[in-house]
């Protein structure tokens, strides 16, 4: 076990592409840290540099206080789980799991015992003599985990280990990965592009974009205090709503009506040199059916009336989708998020909005509804550089 420090690490591939730029991450001993971001943002590259599978172009990587930039993967004492599992097809489950121990010249009885223990933990005991090709996806995934844990390495690196599983199994395995990590207490770096995994698994989350770290923090902190538009739009499902607004005399004028600045927002804005045109961010759960809101609470927010395009009932609550007339919020970050989500080409036509409202709401699809939102929860972003103007760092 050890802490891992990335100190100004940069990776430039031989073809000139800079995949990772000046990344600074300090991973504490025993911490479970998640690297998350859209496709091509450099997550795998970062992980491979920690593993030693890719050379570091500039900067320093320290594991347990020692510089390891020049060390071969086998001398770093780190185990890795691959998205493809990378099980050796010519070996049985047992031989696969024993492979790292055999290479380390561990004696037979210890190998036997360690493999048995790992198989026990991962519920693989009855599959030990089978070949990987005869196993199900979930079982293969567990063998890959088993091969990583048998030799009690200093750290685990996992590159999208669950993305080849179906949705249900993924949720199951997510919990077992989390439990396993707690049980072993081994420093773990976990790569995913799934924000749900990022939110649920890690102690801390690193959001990356285009090779640069956007923000590092605990999942809830990132959710409540995104440093910029990109993090705000990436973390959370359904995503945060973005509405263009202009700041005039302490009031936000937007397609949702005039939003008064609350004391909290006003004080956060003070030092921030806010431009006149901003982007207002609202989480879906900060909306509510106006009829279900007390009058006293109601005065703390803004009520608007709009037609409900689609109403999805999730049982516990409902998702209401609106489209507002007016300009869509535009910025480089939002365009990138849309491209990653595959919604870049979806014809927009105004601002689209998702509200998570109570299951008891009587809103009807295709008819107008009164919707309220909490003015104190708005986040304001600078459309020029994406910075969160209401960031409480």
């Amino acid at each position, binding site marked *: 076990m050890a802490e891992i420090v990335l100190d100004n690490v940069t990776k430039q591939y031989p073809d000139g592409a800079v995949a990772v730029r000046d990344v600074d991450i300090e991973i504490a001993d025993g911490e479970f840290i998640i690297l998350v971001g859209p496709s091509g943002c450099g997550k795998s590259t970062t992980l491979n540099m920690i*593993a030693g599978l890719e050379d570091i172009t500039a900067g320093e990587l320290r594991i347990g206080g020692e510089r390891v930039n020049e060390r071969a993967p086998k001398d770093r004492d780190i185990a890795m789980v*691959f998205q493809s599992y990378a099980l050796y097809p010519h070996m049985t489950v047992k031989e696969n799991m024993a*492979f790292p121990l055999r290479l380390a010249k561990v004696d037979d009885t210890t190998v036997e015992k360690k493999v048995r223990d790992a198989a026990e933990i991962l519920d693989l005991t009855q599959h030990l003599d089978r070949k990987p090709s005869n196993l199900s996806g979930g079982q293969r995934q567990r063998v890959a985990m088993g091969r990583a844990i048998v030799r009690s390495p200093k750290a685990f690196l996992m590159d999208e280990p669950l993305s080849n599983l179906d949705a249900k199994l993924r949720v199951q395995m997510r919990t077992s990965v989390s439990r396993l990590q707690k049980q072993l207490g081994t420093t773990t770096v976990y790569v995913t592009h799934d924000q749900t995994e990022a939110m649920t698994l890690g102690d801390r989350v690193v959001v990356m974009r285009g090779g640069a770290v956007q923000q590092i923090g605990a999942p809830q902190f990132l959710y409540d205090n995104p440093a910029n538009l990109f993090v705000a739009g990436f973390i959370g499902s359904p995503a945060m709503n973005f509405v263009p607004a202009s700041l005039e005399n302490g009031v936000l004028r937007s397609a949702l009506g005039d939003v008064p600045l609350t004391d909290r927002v006003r004080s956060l804005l003070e030092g921030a040199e806010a431009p006149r045109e901003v982007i207002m961010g609202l989480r879906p759960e900060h909306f509510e059916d106006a009829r279900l809101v007390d009058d006293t609470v109601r005065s703390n927010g803004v009520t608007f009336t709009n037609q409900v395009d689609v109403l999805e009932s999730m049982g516990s609550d409902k998702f209401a989708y609106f489209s507002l007339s007016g300009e869509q919020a535009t910025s480089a970050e939002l365009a990138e998020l849309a491209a990653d989500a595959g919604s870049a080409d979806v014809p927009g036509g105004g601002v689209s909005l998702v509200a998570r409202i109570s299951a008891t709401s009587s809103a009807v699809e295709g008819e107008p509804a009164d919707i309220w939102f909490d003015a104190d929860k708005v986040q304001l972003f600078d459309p020029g550089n994406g910075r969160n103007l209401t960031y409480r760092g």
Partner: protein
Amino acid sequence: MSHALRPPAEPADADPTATAADSKLSPKAKAALSEGKKAERRLGLLLCAPAILIMAAVAGWPIIYSVWLSLQRYDLKFPDRTEFVGLENYVTVLSNPYWWNAMWVTVLITVVSVAVELVLGMALALIMHRTLVGRGIVRTSTLIPYGIVTVVAAFSWRYAWTPGTGYLAETVAGGDPVLTEKIPSIMVVTLAEIWKTTPFMALLLMAGLALVPDDLLKAAAMDGATAWQRFTKVMVPVMKPAILVALLFRTLDAFRIFDNLFVLTAGSQGTSSVSMLTYNNLIKGLNLGIGSTMSVLIFIAVAIIAFVFVKLFGTAAPGGDGGGRR
């Protein structure tokens, strides 16, 4: 319904190949073969039929005819003395020191050239697989020897080893006529074989290398394997089927060596291969009986080699059951 349509005799002997393949299953499973499966199998046989007919005509008939000839005393120089002699020709050939000498020469050339080709071919394949710059040029230049007609290449080897004019004879052999002695001649012939067919080996092995996923090698590196261990413990086992195919092709090919030998030594100083000896008896000596006997013996040897390799294949496929391991 399906039973009613089927002639009563059919199920028992409908398809001998299927019986062999299905014998592991219970008899019930065999009876349960659906009408669709049967139709599929019939279509399969139908599609194979033209190829089988052509093979029977161009390969089957000559083989049978050779076997027939090999059982007779039949020398075109003495056509009146032709008669059926049973296995007498086989006794003659198998007790003849020239035949055994040719056999050992052939085996020696085959084993040495294939072994060296495997090692060199693997090295070349790895280089071709890894090179990022000038891939096309590297691959093309590697393949040049294979692209040259064997006889032409053999002549250039012969001139190169001819004292007085050949650069190899002058520099390497110091002016000695190497092609006039048995062992040096065999070495030169083997060298010519290796030079000629290593590219082919490399090509087949490169196809095998493409079968090894990158992640597997990365995983092995993470598991603590050195480059050599990654090669021996992961790469080679995973590409074993490709290696066996390459070895099979080359072994069969090398065992039938003729053209290089014909040009370089013409079988002098006891350097004949079995093919060479057969040619001398059959075509030059006009002894159809003895020549055919030798052909049949070569055929049997080749069949044994192929059989051994195919046996090895069965358990070599990655992810296969590994010879009853379960």
